[in-house]
């Protein structure tokens, strides 16, 4: 009996040691950088060393007072919103149609939608840019062009979660709805849509966030800087101007805004867990 207890204790110890490298990575490469970024945003630029020597709100004030940059942030949000709506309008029906196909075809369809994600994003944006320049050159440097570019890249991110949720809907539910006299449209809106809501919200989060913070798409599809997004500001501040503290401040303002939006979207998710297979991993 004692032996087994010893072994169990040993096992416990070993397994705690196992997580040490992970916690090292987590603390040094995730937690501390964020902390440093916050600290840095209150420093003057061009300071060396880790320890904060000064405190200033200049960066925040400079950013918030510059209407051009505040506008850049909100226009990024608008672009992200438009992208999300567009991917939803395209992606939801797409996922819906796929669920009605033969099992084998479903797999093919998913592979076909998934496949472009394996190709480097910059290559895909470049290719899209070429096509747009060839056929519809007026879309370059426009709001619509940037949105189309974002939809092109992030469409799979919307389709896949929605498909995952739709495919889990118990067909019996649909049958009982039909038995109870509901028309096809009614079933669609009163049964299917609410049940798929968690997938939709997943998709929205996975499209909205990257779309709002992209730096690549506007650089390729709006090279004349007409569509100035918040990511562009952060990139130029760091790469061109070396103003890392300023960029940190902008990044933090951006994070706060995004956190607010994400928090709200997560609150909308009331239907999580209705489809019993979903285990909460978070």
């Amino acid at each position, binding site marked *: 009996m004692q032996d087994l207890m010893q072994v169990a204790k040993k096992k416990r110890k070993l397994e705690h040691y196992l997580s040490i490298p992970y916690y090292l990575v987590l603390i040094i490469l995730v937690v501390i950088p964020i902390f440093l970024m916050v600290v840095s945003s209150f420093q003057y630029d061009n300071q060396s060393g880790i320890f904060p020597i000064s405190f200033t709100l200049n960066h925040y004030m400079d950013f918030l007072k510059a209407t*051009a940059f505040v506008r850049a942030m909100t226009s990024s*949000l608008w672009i992200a919103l438009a992208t999300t709506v567009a991917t939803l309008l395209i992606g939801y029906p797409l996922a819906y149609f796929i669920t009605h196909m033969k099992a084998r075809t479903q797999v093919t369809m998913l592979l076909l939608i998934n496949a472009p994600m394996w190709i480097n994003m910059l290559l895909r944006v470049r290719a899209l840019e070429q096509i747009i320049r060839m056929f519809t050159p007026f879309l370059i440097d426009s709001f619509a062009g940037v949105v189309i570019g974002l939809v092109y890249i992030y469409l799979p991110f919307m389709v896949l979660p929605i498909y995952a949720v739709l495919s889990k809907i118990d067909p019996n539910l649909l049958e009982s709805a039909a038995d109870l006299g509901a028309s096809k449209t009614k079933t669609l809106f009163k049964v299917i849509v609410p049940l798929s809501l968690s997938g939709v919200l997943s998709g929205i989060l996975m499209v909205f966030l990257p779309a709002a913070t992209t730096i690549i798409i506007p650089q390729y599809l709006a090279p004349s800087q007409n569509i100035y997004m918040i990511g562009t500001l952060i990139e130029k501040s760091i790469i061109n101007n070396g103003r890392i503290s300023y960029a940190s401040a902008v990044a933090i303002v951006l994070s706060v805004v995004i956190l607010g*939006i994400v928090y709200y979207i997560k609150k909308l998710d009331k239907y999580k867990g209705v489809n019993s297979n979903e285990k909460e991993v978070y």
Partner: protein
Amino acid sequence: MKKGLFLVLLFALIFGLASCDQGETLRLYNWGEYIDDALVEAFEEETGIRVKQIAFDSNEVAITQIKGGNQYDLVIPSDYAIEQLALDELIIEINWSKVTTFNKDTDVADGLKSILDDVKNDAEDSFDLLKYSVPYFWGNVGILYNTETVDQADLDGWDTLLLSDTYNIAFYNSSRDAFMPALKATQASTINHPTVQEFNAAVSWLSTGLTADVSVITDEIFDAMLDPARYDIAVSYSGDANYLMSENDKLDFYVPEEGTNVWVDGFVIPVGANEDLSYAFINFMMDYDQAKQNTEYVGYSTPRKDVFEEMIAPGGSFVDYQSSYDVRINDNDEVYRYNENLKQQMDAKWQEILANKGFDQDEGLGTSTLIAIIGVGLLVVTSAVLGVIKKKKNQI
């Protein structure tokens, strides 16, 4: 199968970790399209030293990256950047006894010499560029235009760039090369120490000029101005103009009367560089044959007096482009000087101007922005309120 995979991974890791150092490497940080690659290859063959080229498209980027800890063996920045790097002690003084193929007292082209002397003899702010750099190319900035589409009468100083209603216009995407035309056009007394009013006037000029259909470019110019040229009027460096005019004979180069920026780019050796490699490369490139080949390929004016005079003499490669190769230095032309304060202001303002581009100036924040702010605000408030209400409900 498992073992196989593991072995492959291990092998890959080991091979990656082992540094295959085959000879030394010279890290050259240079403008894009600013050197004849054939010469680089010739250097590598002759000396066995491998040259790794990294490119930047503005001095601002170059300075940021050097300050950020990137180590290079040779960098080719512009005059004011050289000043800044020297003052920040990021580059070493040139040991001219090690420069054997170029003599700084006798081999410098006349026009360049007068620029260098002006900066050195500046009463208030003297700086000897030759102390920290070996000249590489020099020139000025002007307007490259399409003779077929642009009416000569419209060429009216730097204000020509404001004619976006009539022509396709391209500005250069760097804060200095945007502010210089602006400051000159609004008649600032000097581009190096503008007063607050002069600076604001320049900002206004730029904001007016940068409408939605104006382009802001850097290296795209090499492709865009070939026949058929995408832009009618473009801010251009003299050397780029030479190159493009030789490729597209419909183009011409014009230097506005208000004056422009004359500049010189030079080799600098960063602190911590492998100096032997640096000097080897400098000596190679500054030699008569290589300097000649380089200037003929790239199109910029060479600092070497003998090569320079040969280029503009009858039979020389640039005899037809004297106006841009033989840089005329007018009274109003200025060299940019290092001014940290001004630089920061210009850099920040330039981003703001770009962000404002395409928006109506009087709009202020704009309706869509206000809606977005109000919308996000409402979301936050309602979710907070709902949260509280729900809690209360649960408590009842």
